[in-house]
């Protein structure tokens, strides 16, 4: 019996060791990832390689940053962003709660500044320290915790200003910026950010060019909200000509898109949703639906091998989301 326990302990320790090694390798790989900065159009730049995509608006007033990547990539990402403007980050906008998009919040906030009038700074001497962080209300709810409880994210990473009215608008660097809530899409706190003069939309993880959408049911996501959000982006975007150029859309992960890329992704999600819906109507179980491979035509392009965005994960989330609706 003792020998059996020793074997079990050794196996568990071995597995844990392997997991630690894998995790360490993953972190090391991420930390060694190359940060790339690409001009998009107008005042907008895309920063890749820090986890989720980071979108930067740079101009004479300073910088607005949409999402902040992984915490461990903050130094590299900030160094790359600092080259875009001699002025500091004034505003951070979170498209949603996940740590590959909010992990750098604390570091980015500390590297930034808030411009406030003398009547404020006289009373609140620390008000200039750090940038403001905007997000939809549910992002703060999911990053924080009631007093006395351990919060999922450190206090310094929390949004400093939230909105629950569906839309927040402000102007910076001579450009109107709209933050538009997309309920129950990838999560329940998704926002898309529209830079109106530059004609660029930061879509967060509602749009990915790397994998299937990750519908985070635990955090309030849903398939119909995901499709609604994609349709909203399609409706906002205007091609320059022949379904090309015009409005550029930056996904949460992957490459720069224009409207037609979003249309293709919307079509894919809608078609898969329709297939699963039809299978549910026929009374098929989740396992039967998975076995029928309703994503076969898109698996080579969007099916992640593991982790987020796998075909099975997408089918399961869609099935559960459609079943919940009933």
């Amino acid at each position, binding site marked *: 019996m003792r020998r059996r326990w020793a074997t079990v302990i050794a196996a568990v320790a071995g597995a844990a060791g392997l997991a630690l090694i894998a995790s360490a390798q993953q972190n090391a790989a991420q930390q060694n990832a190359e940060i790339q900065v690409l001009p998009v159009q107008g005042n907008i730049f895309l920063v*890749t390689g820090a986890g989720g995509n980071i979108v930067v608006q740079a101009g004479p007033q300073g910088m607005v940053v949409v999402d902040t990547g992984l915490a461990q990539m903050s130094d590299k990402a900030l160094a790359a962003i600092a080259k875009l403007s001699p002025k500091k980050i004034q505003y951070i906008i979170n498209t949603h709660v996940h740590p590959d998009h909010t992990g750098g919040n604390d570091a980015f906030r500390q590297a930034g500044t808030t411009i406030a009038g003398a009547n404020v700074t006289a009373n609140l001497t620390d008000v200039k320290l750090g940038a403001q962080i905007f997000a939809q209300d549910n992002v703060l709810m999911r990053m924080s915790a009631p007093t006395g409880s351990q919060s999922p994210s450190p206090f310094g990473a929390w949004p400093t200003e939230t909105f629950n009215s569906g839309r927040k608008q402000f102007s910076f660097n001579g450009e109107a910026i709209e933050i538009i809530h997309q309920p129950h899409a990838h999560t329940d706190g998704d926002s898309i950010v529209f830079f109106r003069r530059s004609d660029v939309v930061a879509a967060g993880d509602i749009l990915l060019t790397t994998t299937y959408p990750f519908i985070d049911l635990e955090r309030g996501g849903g398939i119909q909200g995901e499709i609604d959000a994609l349709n909203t982006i399609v409706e906002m975007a205007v091609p320059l000509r022949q379904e090309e150029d015009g409005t550029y859309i930056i996904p949460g992960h992957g490459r720069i898109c224009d409207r037609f890329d979003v249309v293709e992704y919307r079509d894919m999600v809608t078609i898969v949703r329709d*297939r699963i819906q039809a299978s549910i109507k026929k009374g098929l179980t989740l396992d039967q639906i998975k076995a029928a491979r309703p994503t076969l035509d898109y698996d080579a392009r969007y099916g992640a091998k593991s982790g987020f965005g796998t075909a099975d994960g997408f089918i399961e989330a869609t099935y559960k989301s459609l079943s919940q609706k009933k």
Partner: protein
Amino acid sequence: MGIARFWCLLLLFLPILTAQGPGSYVPGREPGIDLAGNWGPVFHEDAGERGPGPELVNYLGFPINEGARLAALSYDASRFTVPEHQCEPHIVTYIYRGPLNVRIWEERDPQSQELIAIKQYIDNYEQTRTIWMDGRPHPSDAALHTWMGFSTGKWDGGILTVYTTHLKRGWLRRNGLRHSDQTTLVEHFIRHGDHMTHVSIVTDPLTLTEPLIRSQDFLLRGQNGEGWLYPCEPVVEIERPRGAVPHYLPGENPFLHEFADKFHIPLEAALGGAETAYPEYQLKIKQSATAAAKK
């Protein structure tokens, strides 16, 4: 001349003797040929496909995988009535197959006359294409993908060879067969007097099991020709619920047998695959038909 002096002179002139990149242009000694002019298509091959378009569920001869086949079978041509699909151009991997005129010209550095790019204007969907000849690298993976992609060219003797990346998802054939946005394209433009042959090799590991090779021919036009415009403005043709995407559910394509029945070929041949591109496949089909008749 002493050995040392010879080597010194050789080293001095070596960069000039071996130079290939920008800065090495010598007038009159540039490789390649002039492709400039207005070119019109010659429809002596695949005319039915290139003019009116291919039949539905005719994938014969296309080396597609099962995923590409399912996507094509799901395709409902009504998708073209959706406003955001109405102005979708033919992608560069396909555009030379359709009806088109092509204008080709060179872009040269005004001071050095070095060839910077070969440009093309294709009237079908008003597409302008740039083939960079100055050795510049292809863009980052995170850059935009477009209908004409990002192309670089080089001369292989008198043949212009072009390599294209950064493509959108687009037609392999305009009946629902599509390649992915991970596709790459190699082309050869071969001029024989007033005749030009264009060979395209489409590689897409996500939808094709082997490269798809096609050729088209063009004739140099003596005149500018007409029909250089293709304005497109989408409109709502059919009222539908927001975001509706016309498609057939798996197993429900009503046109599945249409092409196969019309031309009396087995459905499995119509559904394509690499095997159906080769002459030996005809023998296999005959043998299986004979075996079936015997039963």
